């Protein structure tokens, strides 16, 4: 085999090997999705979504409280994380110089990387310890702390996609800085900011670790923000580790619901974003 043939062979072989790597990287998603559908889809029915859990041994029962709990926790998290995050993002993009924004960006980036269990300890120390018991509020705070840096970063990035000349046009017409931001910059980036928030919510919706010792669990309907509250990820965790086949069956179904929600939000918002980008490039 002469040198050129050898080089061409290496080229072909390595293309194949790296392509195989790429396929292996995609496989787990398809495998997990398929597995959840096979194991969980048969358990999905109206009662599953609307009924409370029943004691072990009784058939039937659902996860209505866990779904409602997750919704409430996300709402609390959004109340904490979204306003602060969006305003912070506006600062970074529109007002920032080089000093404060550098540290804020660094902190946001670090906070996203901090293990979620550590955020859980933080919420425990700040909310649970002073009050003395687990509560929905503590869980919402923990998720909110996770939400905040994601929203800040996303908002800044989308505001930056608005062209500078739009701002200059507005300023040249005599509008002030804030007026320009509110009536020109934010409308131009609104779609991106909203999808960014949605993506961030989908990301924290699947978190279990920060809820274990903040929101804890509750087998009934939630009775107030100051009480423990159930959530979908927590329920999957408990049911999955239990010793009962019926709970395992429900864990699979709940996992399918959770994954379905997360993937749906991801796919839809990414498509929306991609279309927005394409439209902007065409303009």
């Amino acid at each position, binding site marked *: 085999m002469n040198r050129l043939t050898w080089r061409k062979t290496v080229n072909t072989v*390595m293309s194949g090997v790296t392509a195989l790597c790429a396929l292996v990287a995609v496989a787990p998603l398809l495998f997990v999705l398929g597995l959840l559908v096979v194991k969980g889809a048969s358990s999905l029915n109206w009662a599953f979504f609307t009924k409370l859990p029943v004691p072990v041994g009784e058939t039937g029962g659902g996860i209505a409280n866990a779904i409602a709990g997750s919704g409430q926790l996300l709402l609390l998290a959004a109340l904490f994380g979204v306003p602060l995050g969006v305003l912070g993002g506006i600062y970074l993009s529109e*007002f920032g110089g080089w000093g404060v924004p550098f540290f804020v960006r660094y902190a946001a980036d670090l906070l996203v990387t901090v*293990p979620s269990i550590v955020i859980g300890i*933080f919420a425990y*120390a700040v909310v649970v310890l002073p009050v003395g018991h687990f509560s929905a509020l503590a869980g919402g705070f923990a998720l909110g702390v996770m939400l905040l840096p994601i929203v800040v970063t996303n908002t800044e990035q989308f505001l930056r996609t608005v062209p500078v000349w739009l701002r200059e046009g507005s300023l040249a017409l005599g509008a002030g800085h804030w007026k320009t931001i509110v009536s020109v910059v934010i409308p131009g980036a609104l779609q991106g900011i909203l999808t960014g928030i949605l993506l961030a919510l989908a990301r924290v919706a699947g978190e279990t670790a920060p809820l274990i010792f903040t929101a804890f669990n509750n087998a009934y309907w939630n009775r107030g923000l100051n009480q423990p509250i159930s959530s979908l990820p927590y329920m999957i965790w408990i049911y*999955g580790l239990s010793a009962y086949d019926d709970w395992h069956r429900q864990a699979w179904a709940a*996992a399918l619901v959770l994954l379905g929600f*997360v993937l749906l939000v991801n796919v839809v918002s990414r498509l929306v974003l991609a279309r927005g980008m394409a439209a902007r490039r065409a303009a």
Partner: protein
Amino acid sequence: MAISNTTLAGPPPGGPSERWRFLGGTRGVDTIAWLVTLVAALSVLFVTVWLVVELWRHSTLPRQAFGFRFLLDSVWDPVFGHFGALPFVYGTLVTSAVAMLIAVPLGVGAAIFLAELAPRGFSDALTFLVELLAAVPSVVLGLVGIFVVVPWVRTSFGPVLKDLFGFTPLFQGPIYGVGFLTSGLVLAIMVLPFIVSISREVLLSVPVDLREGALALGATKWEATWKVVVPTAGTGILGSIFLGLARALGETMAVSMVIGGTPQIAASLFAPGYSIASVIADQFSEATGDLFRQSLIELGLVLFGITLLLHAVARALVHFTTRKARGAA
């Protein structure tokens, strides 16, 4: 002069709009907006610092009782109030090492294919799917871990490894299914999308001129990729690996479901163990007594410290490469 007036004689005379003059002549509403958004931005910084302070404040007992021996002591005995973190540090490092050994070659290979060799549309579609994998909740992967990966390791994968490599201490002893190896496998799936996604971006940021130059000199596509593009992007790829590692070290739920929950240091990858994050998840709610709970919080502090370190290195590496690549373009 305006400034000295304000400091000496209090707020300047005139209406509210007059008073904002000392802040540089911007109009009132702009100044308020600036102030409000600044406070919001600073809240991120504040929360981060607050988090460290709380972790520090709530781990005084074990720090006073054990000092630095906490990290080197291998006994974790809540009943006798003796707490050492070494088994968990060991478990965290071993599971992460297994994960990185699998995920790094796979992830970098996939990134090379997606950035350099695959047609653009195909590459975008595959990357989209890989990034979706990052969105799968940890607890869902844990569930798959318990019911699929654990039995698979126990009955198929484990025995095969034992036959092949059973002479090394890494693959000896009974195979329970749960343990370091299984946790590493699940972790590999979790960090893979991060490595692929970031490495691909770094590779794409390498200027086209370099590729064209190599190809014009007669290099094959693979030679141009492997000898020119990958070395140029090397630091950034290293950064993506560090980010993946930071992820693996702190991963909680999936690991806690498949690692076996035994605070021990064992050479065999088949043995059950515990990682820092998973022991916090498992034992925190049941922790009786302040020393026990605070020891777990100190474990959280250790985890935060490791993350801080890795994150700084990773960011610096990624930043350095993309900056350099852009500067060269």
